[in-house]
């Protein structure tokens, strides 16, 4: 697994990828053609993947887990973090959260 700031990228075995994912709609790429794993609302800084592949939101909600498929591998970039190369395969993308008494909120870095 790989971590870039508040985003964790966990390899997923191909056989455990839910079957509905192949038909599911892919998340659109941003204006620079990247797959955006997490976007900072105010700074506009993004954890993003360049290169071929697709990103599918698994469950509803702004920060729900997403599945990332990179048939040829790729790289995760961010304005404030070092780039991380990823091997080819499937990944679950998890956004970091923080504990609040009675609630949980998403961390933004």
């Amino acid at each position, binding site marked *: 697994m*790989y971590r870039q700031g508040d985003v964790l990228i966990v390899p997923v075995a191909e056989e455990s990828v839910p079957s509905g994912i192949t038909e599911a709609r892919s998340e659109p790429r941003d204006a620079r053609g990247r797959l955006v794993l997490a976007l900072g*609302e105010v700074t506009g800084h993004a954890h993003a993947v360049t290169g071929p592949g697709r990103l599918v939101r698994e469950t509803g909600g702004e920060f729900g887990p997403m599945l990332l498929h990179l048939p040829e591998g790729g790289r995760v970039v961010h304005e404030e973090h070092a780039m991380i190369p990823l091997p080819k395969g499937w990944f679950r993308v998890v956004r970091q959260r923080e504990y609040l008494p009675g609630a949980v909120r998403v961390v933004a870095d």
Partner: protein
Amino acid sequence: MQQVDKWRGVAAATGAADRPAAEAGIRLAYRTAGLAEPERIVWADSPLAGLTAVRSLTEQGRSVRDEVRTKPWAEERRRIHDELGPAGWAEWWGVTGARLWDTTRALAERIRSGITDAPTTDPAELPETRQLLLDAVLGQHDAAWLAAFDGRGERLAGLAEVAAHAGWWWPYEKVTVVCERPVELHRDEAGRLDRGDGPALAYPDGFALYAWRGMPVPADFLAELTTLDPARIRTEENAELRRVMLEYYGYDRYLAESGAEPIGKDETGILWRIALADDEDVVMVEVVNSTPEPDGTSRTYWLRVPPNTRTAKEGVAWTFGLDAQTYEPLRQT
């Protein structure tokens, strides 16, 4: 999407309205709706003042919000929907309006509740106040919809022009009341209202909202933040306000000054516990950012984790929804 950036900027714009441009937009919106231009345009310094101005009108005629905004809006939406098909429209909305929807809607909702909660608002008039608030055209806070419509037709050009140059407005047959934009707007990375040393949102007439990381706080509470000490924090009975105090004061400083002891340390960081009277313990992991800042230093930060957390690694793993055994990053930056 370039229009998303443009309209994100519009939604967050502060500073004096461009009154001639906004008034030209209002007149265009009336003409596009097949109406005569308003006889008068009245400016107000905030949505609160705008509401007062609306109340004081006498010969304004009927509300023309439906003709000016709602109907053309709905028809443009239907037109684009038909042109793109249901899936195409959903995808288009996903890359345009949806990007701005949550934060802008939340901001407008906070302004509405700021008005209904204002000391000058008469409780007996609340139902009417709420109704009038729902009658407003939200100007810059309609940015999500306007982003989705941008570049797809001229019909909403008047509405877009007002939104780009002014705040909320109320269109009546003979009179339009239109508001200035905020002079201050401060939000955190997640888009929530957030400021520790003044109003997070303020209009030129002084109408203001105070918030810390989205949580509404009283103005005098913020003034007190600068003179906090650990004893004052410990005696604050409101758990939410105490959390704000802790965040503002700095967990690190609080830990140091209250003599808290680390309860564990491993390769992921340090686990701390602060016992609080009549409340669950605050348990935090202290972690160091893997990527150094431009000046070469590494930023330390604290994440609150559930009170039953036993090790720093268990805490960090929890922040990603994992248990300590499975959390094993190969590489982190």
